[in-house]
């Protein structure tokens, strides 16, 4: 038992509660909001160490043994996801200090951000399928309002789509949970992993797996279930876009990885073939969507979809290399994608728009920003020696190793198209000439670190770019832990034993 496992859940709750109690004071909001993220990160680091040293950690909440109570399980996958979400949380909280206005603060931006992280962390930690549903809902409601906070027309339009489709997806998830319970009488995922193979009607288990595929697929924004994402992610303030674009869909991916390695492994020939198809289409359709748009954040949104495909691809291979690649891809993508969103925000501050065709001159006037963009964009496109390179390399290698040639070729081509649309941004916003009309007065005159508070936005971006570089140049540690995570996933008996005790 490791009592610390609950900290990533309760720290955000405590922080949110405090922030709510002090909601009248903007200063308190900010302090509580950022300090909370620091504490959260610290707690995750402690946990990470435990898992790295001692293997999978378990906490039986309420002191009720599994499968009767709710179990929190920290395996390496959970730790990696927790780690990246804590890092992004801190980054976003700092960025928000400037990006988020007083009005939004007054209406609970920081508590909502923390509750969002709480839902995300709970999803990563829980070992109970119904509890996962609950955390999904916590995450959803927080994301709903973060998306709509501000009530601009675009936000409302985007939020409506996001909300209705995600509500439907949650209900589908709940139905899937109900069916699982009806088949096995249990909700504990380790227990489910033990009991599902004993279900007489194997085809029924596979059928239920499809419900989960669709439901999580909606959250993860896979083809053809992703429509809500590009319709909404570009509408809120950038800090929110960034955490959505970086983190939220990955929770869906996490859930897919979890259930398709732990629970639904009885008919891999069928389920994982479907995953491969899904992966291919998701990549292609997403990247084509990006190619057809000229709004900074919309392009990024469509790329989220596209890159989910790579993660699903790694999962579909069901090999250590594939899963390692998928997990690494998730981590890398969160860094790169969030950072691009954050950069779009700075660009918008400078140029007053997100529309590429009205942007230009950033390379000329803000070379440092250009470097930061380059790092993130080329990382996204999988260029060495950046984080994305390792992600792409492992996934491609995994694909070739299982002789999935068509899918791997698709992945490679999509990589090129990703590069294409990243360069579309570069060629217009950065290399393009400064537009003649509509450019704010301050463009080119203020420095990133000079007047104003822009540095509050730039420093987090630098930090993430630094991480991208670090992960790229010194990939070994992260790849190793991703491998540990992948091996744990491929060997569920360790997980089951950790939760239910020696069998």
């Amino acid at each position: 038992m490791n009592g610390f496992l609950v900290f990533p859940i309760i720290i955000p709750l405590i922080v949110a509660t405090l922030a709510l109690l002090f909601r009248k004071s903007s200063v308190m909001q900010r302090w509580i909001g950022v300090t909370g993220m620091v504490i959260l990160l610290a707690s995750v680091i402690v946990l990470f160490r435990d898992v790295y040293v001692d293997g999978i950690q378990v906490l039986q909440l309420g002191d009720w043994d599994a499968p009767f109570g709710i179990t929190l399980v920290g395996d390496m996958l959970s730790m990696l996801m927790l780690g990246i979400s804590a890092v992004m949380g801190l980054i976003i909280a700092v960025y928000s200090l400037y990006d988020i206005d007083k009005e939004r603060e007054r209406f609970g931006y920081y508590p909502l951000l923390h509750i969002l992280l709480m839902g995300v962390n709970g999803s990563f930690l829980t070992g109970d399928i119904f509890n996962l549903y609950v955390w999904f809902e916590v995450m959803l409601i927080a994301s709903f309002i973060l998306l709509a906070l501000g009530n601009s027309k675009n936000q409302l339009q985007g939020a409506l789509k996001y909300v209705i489709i995600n509500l439907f997806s949650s209900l589908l998830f709940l139905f899937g949970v109900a069916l699982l319970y009806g088949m096995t009488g249990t909700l504990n995922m380790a227990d489910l992993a033990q009991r599902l193979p004993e279900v007489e009607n194997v085809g029924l288990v596979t059928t239920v797996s499809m419900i989960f595929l669709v439901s999580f697929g909606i959250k993860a924004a896979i083809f053809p279930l992703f429509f809500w994402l590009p319709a909404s992610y570009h509408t809120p303030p950038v800090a929110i876009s960034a955490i959505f674009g970086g983190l939220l869909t990955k929770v869906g991916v996490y859930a897919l990885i979890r259930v398709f390695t732990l629970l639904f492994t009885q008919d891999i020939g069928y389920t994982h073939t479907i995953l491969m198809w899904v992966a291919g289409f998701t990549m292609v359709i997403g990247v084509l969507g990006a190619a057809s748009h000229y709004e900074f954040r919309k392009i990024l949104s469509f790329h989220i979809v596209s890159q989910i495909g790579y993660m699903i691809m790694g999962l579909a291979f069901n090999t250590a290399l594939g899963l390692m690649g998928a997990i690494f891809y998730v981590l890398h993508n969160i860094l790169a994608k969030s950072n691009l969103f954050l950069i779009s925000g700075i660009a918008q501050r400078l140029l007053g728009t997100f529309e590429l065709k009205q942007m230009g001159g950033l390379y000329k006037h803000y070379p440092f920003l250009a470097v930061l963009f380059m790092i993130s964009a080329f990382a996204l496109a999988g260029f060495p020696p950046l984080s994305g390179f390792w992600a792409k390399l492992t996934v491609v290698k995994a694909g070739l190793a299982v002789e999935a040639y068509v899918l791997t070729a698709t992945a490679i081509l999509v990589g090129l198209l990703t590069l294409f649309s990243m360069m579309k941004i570069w060629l217009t916003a950065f290399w393009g000439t400064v537009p003649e009309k509509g450019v704010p007065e301050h463009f080119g005159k203020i420095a990133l670190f000079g007047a104003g508070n822009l540095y509050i936005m730039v420093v987090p971006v630098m930090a993430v770019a630094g991480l991208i570089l670090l992960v790229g140049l010194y990939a070994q540690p992260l790849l190793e832990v991703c491998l540990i995570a992948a091996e744990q996933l491929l060997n569920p008996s360790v997980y089951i034993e950790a939760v239910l005790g020696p069998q």
Partner: protein
Amino acid sequence: MDTILPIIAGAIFASGIYLLLRPSLILTIIGIILISNSVNLALFTLGRISTENPPLIAAGSVMPEVPFANPLPQALILTAIVIGFGLLAFALALAYRSYKELGTVDQDQLLKDPEDTSTAIVNNTDNTEKRDV
């Protein structure tokens, strides 16, 4: 095995799905309410039912009277109902606010996001606040 409840659940689900696909947001939300109800009923049914004793322990006893109704699905549904209620309240408020800002509840007009349908440039700076930089 109870036969009638799965059919009822299916019927409610079907009605919910139909409403979900209506153009009016309000109907869509009513559809969500119905689907939510049907899934709860499904969960209830899947916990296996028959006309049994409630899962309450009488004073002076340490066990409920057997056979007792399965309490776990009840607790789960209770959780789901409350969650659903919270989300529904949000969806309603969102529909209301959207109506106020956008002037309609018809998604055919209201949600037809011009950016979704074309690659044309739409200037949407309206969600970005101008601060002194």
